[in-house]
């Protein structure tokens, strides 16, 4: 009697077991790879947050006067004078001060104050209107008529808003005045900390150093921002 072609039950079971094992290995590999990609993506988001924090704070604090502009440093918050425009006094109209100005936004009496340079006088900004042609100015400057409590003397002035940066609720955030804390990064920080290490009386530019640490699982962890005086500039100590 000829045997008919086909598979026996044992063979079928063996095939099923092998297939199952193979699928298990495949699923495991895929899961592992997927986990790696997820960790990599989280690390990338964390690195982006670190870079963003560094760039924003460098832009805000690099040329700040630590004694005047960094007003309070807490582990999770940093209160600063956030400069938004630089102006040079170019004349007066009655009690208003004419200023030729460059900046990242228009001066806004609802938000801004004015710091006179040489200072350290700070005046609230009562009003600001454009005054084209009121002073000679460069093509990339605009002339504004500023209403201050008193006319500003010859010199420069900085238009600034009071704001605070926060390392809280898993993100780097900015808060202007009493408004809410707006996130500037994704919410990927386990925790953050500001550490001042600058000499308040020094006049070097400020360097912010942002350190990041991942946790034992290799996932995003702590962000630590250290402020320090930048490398000393050429010695001109003892000047007037």
């Amino acid at each position, binding site marked *: 009697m000829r045997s008919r072609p086909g598979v026996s039950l044992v063979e079928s079971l063996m095939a099923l077991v092998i297939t199952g094992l193979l699928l298990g290995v495949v699923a495991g590999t895929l899961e592992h790879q997927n986990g790696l990609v997820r960790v990599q993506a989280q690390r990338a988001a964390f690195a982006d947050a670190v870079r963003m924090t560094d760039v924003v704070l460098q832009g805000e604090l690099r040329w700040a006067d630590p004694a005047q502009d960094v007003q309070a440093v807490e582990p999770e918050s940093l209160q600063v004078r956030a400069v938004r425009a630089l102006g040079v006094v170019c004349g007066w109209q009655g009690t208003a001060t004419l200023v030729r100005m460059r*900046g990242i936004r228009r*001066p806004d009496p609802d938000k801004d104050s004015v710091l006179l340079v040489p200072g350290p006088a700070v005046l609230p900004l009562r009003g600001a209107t454009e005054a084209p042609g009121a002073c000679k100015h460069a093509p990339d400057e605009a002339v504004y008529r500023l209403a201050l409590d008193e006319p500003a003397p010859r010199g420069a002035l900085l238009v600034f808003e009071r704001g605070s940066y926060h390392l809280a609720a898993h993100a780097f955030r900015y808060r202007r005045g009493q408004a809410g804390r707006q996130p500037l990064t994704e919410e990927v920080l386990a925790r953050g900390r500001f550490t001042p290490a600058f000499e308040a009386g020094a006049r070097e530019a400020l360097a912010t150093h942002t350190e990041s640490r991942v946790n034992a699982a290799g996932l995003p962890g702590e962000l630590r921002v250290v402020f320090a005086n930048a490398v000393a500039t050429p010695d001109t100590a003892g*000047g007037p």
Partner: protein
Amino acid sequence: MALLITVMLLLALSSLAAGMLWIAAAQNAAASITARHARFRLDMEAAALDAFARWQTPRPRHPVGETWAVDAGTTAESATVLADRLTPTLTLLRVTHIRRTPEGLAAVMRVGLLVRTVQPEELLESFPAALTAGAANLGDGALIDATDPALAPDGWYTVDCPDAGAAALDSLYGGQLPGAAVPDSASVRRDGSSRIRGWPPVLARPGLVPPEQARLGPIPWAAIPDIADLTVRGTVHPAAREVEGRCAVGRPDNWGAPGGVGPCSRYAPVIYAPSGLVVSGGAGQGILVVRGDVKFENGARFYGPVFASGELLVNDSARIVGAARAGTATIRNATIQYRVCPLWRAWSDAPALRRAFRPQGRWWLPDYVRAP
């Protein structure tokens, strides 16, 4: 079936690997941009400091409110520096740094740097009399003279004395100065034929501080060693020194040619002596600052301000034309004559004071690329 599973597996793994590669590449690009940004900013700051270090104009010819281009040096070839004169003593350097990429893109960044210049008017206040001292001992033949302070010194051309000096003197002191300023009138001892001329001859200034606590204009005493053009020790016989028709600037015994017309006539260095000094004849001009005692003898002549922390001894027909300030002073058979012209010339021409200084307080200012 197995082949299908294998292909699917390979596809899945490849997609995951490609995803990770893409993330890594994006991170690498972001890190590279961050590094270039930092380098860009440092280059710009270096250009600002270069312009600051190269500053060589004591009194900008530009009036307050004017803007002019400044030499940006070689640190950053793509940097331009404009100066805004804000006040008589403060100027804002505004650096614009442009970087172009091979792809034709350009990035622009700006920063401002405040610099302080020293004006002769500020220095005039440090010398309120022909002789300012804690105590003065005037022997035979001593003459302290503050009459006609605006006149040119004997032998000097009137055209070499700018009207601005006399105008500043007039504005600050009403054109009249005391011969000697001391803490109280009893601090002056006079013998024999000594004379003090001025209005008044002796002025009591109870609050007079010792030279080491005083300032040379806006510059504190402690800063003078750092900025001095010459450092001298021991005994010096100064005279104008020339090499191949040029003034030998930097030689410790070359103190310029007072009242002369040669190449050293406008050389008036800030001279610092860290441990006392003897000027044994000769002639010179500039700003002489001595830690300790200074002695002028053998007919030595000095034109400009003399600032000594210890005793000022002027003997043997020696002559100071300008003004002197010291801890104590002993003058015998010698003259100290107030003349604003050599003071003004020294303060205007001293290389050490032609530089820019850091102002007090804030000196970096953020600047922006467009109108708000």
